[in-house]
């Protein structure tokens, strides 16, 4: 019933009667429009909502902004093609992170070079997008480098954990790992991060001035 109402509202919004758009709808409704209706406007709203986290995830996994954006585009195109098969058992965000991780794995297997980290991983990741203090910028760079040096299985877990709205069971589902393994990986990853930051004299490892 609420979907019918939402559909009606969206239709009116599109015709300019309410002056509002798909921004009012939740992901489930947008998926319905974009999936069955093949509505590009609804899908654009889904992209707008989730691109920041998907691009952030791939940026931390690849360490390359251009590559991360290219892979993110592939993620959303795959999602669009697969929307009609999306059953809604998981949240849309979980589903899209899983696609993102699969796209990353496919890319890595295609390109052996990415088996290790690309040269300049740490310096390319942390370019600030806003005016920030030098200290914060340094901290970002150090954290990106610390994440970059993690073994891939740990890196994926830690990156998903810090996306924040992803629960442990969702991380397990995205990565196809048992829940216990996710928790163990996360514990080890955080320990390694701290170790790296301390050993490398990072801003995060130094006393506050």
């Amino acid at each position, binding site marked *: 019933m609420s979907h019918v109402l939402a*559909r*009606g509202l*969206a*239709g009116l919004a*599109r015709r300019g009667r309410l002056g509002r758009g798909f921004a009012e709808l939740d992901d489930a409704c947008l998926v319905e*429009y974009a999936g069955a*209706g*093949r*509505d*590009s406007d609804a*899908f*654009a709203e889904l*992209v*707008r909502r989730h*691109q*920041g*986290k998907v*691009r*952030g*995830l791939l*940026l*931390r996994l690849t360490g390359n902004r251009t590559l991360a*954006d290219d892979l*993110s*585009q592939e993620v*959303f*195109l795959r999602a*669009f*093609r697969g929307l009609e098969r999306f059953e809604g058992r998981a949240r849309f965000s979980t589903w899209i992170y899983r696609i993102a991780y699969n796209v990353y794995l496919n890319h890595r297997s295609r390109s052996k070079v990415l088996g290790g980290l690309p040269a300049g991983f740490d310096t390319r990741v942390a370019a600030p*997008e*806003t005016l920030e203090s030098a200290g*914060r910028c340094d*901290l*970002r760079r150090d*954290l*990106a480098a610390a994440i970059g040096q993690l073994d891939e299985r740990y890196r994926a877990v830690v*990156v998903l954990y*810090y*996306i*924040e709205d992803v629960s442990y069971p969702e991380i397990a589902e995205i990565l196809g790992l048992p829940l216990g393994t996710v928790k163990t990986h996360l*514990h080890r990853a*955080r*320990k390694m991060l*701290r170790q790296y*930051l301390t050993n490398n004299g990072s801003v*995060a*490892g*130094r*006393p*506050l001035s």
Partner: protein
Amino acid sequence: MRRDCTQRLRDVLLDVELDSGQLRIDPTGRTWLPAALRSEVERSAEARAQLARFVRTERELFDDARVATDPFFTARVVERLPASDVDHRGRRTLILATFHALAFGVAYVLVFPWLNGDASELPGAVHLWIESGAESGALWGLVLLFVLGSWLLGCARPDAPGWS
């Protein structure tokens, strides 16, 4: 004693699970550090510094987990969507309108013999009116009217693919 405190704090911080909101609201750990450890941390400058570094790092990790939304990125994705899948509102409506018009035409052809054979005055009069319209060229106008009507019907149907 001090070393014990920093070591225990380090162990606790490794396992503690906090979201960015909690870290922002309570960076000193009043609500999430174990009580015994909290009082020790308050006494130790080294432990306080360690806690502050932890909070700063965690917040940065959360903040940096997503990149800023880029409208050009969305535009690029939409541009690359398979053209055949994107909503063909106009084309679908046209197809719908054409088939509505065709249905009207077929209905007319089917009813035509019945109109001829029947003595009923009203349908016969309608038929004669259409026939005379065709002779005077107004039939095309009628067809156009059908198409227009069908197009409007196609647009007005809430379940039509292009409507949503």
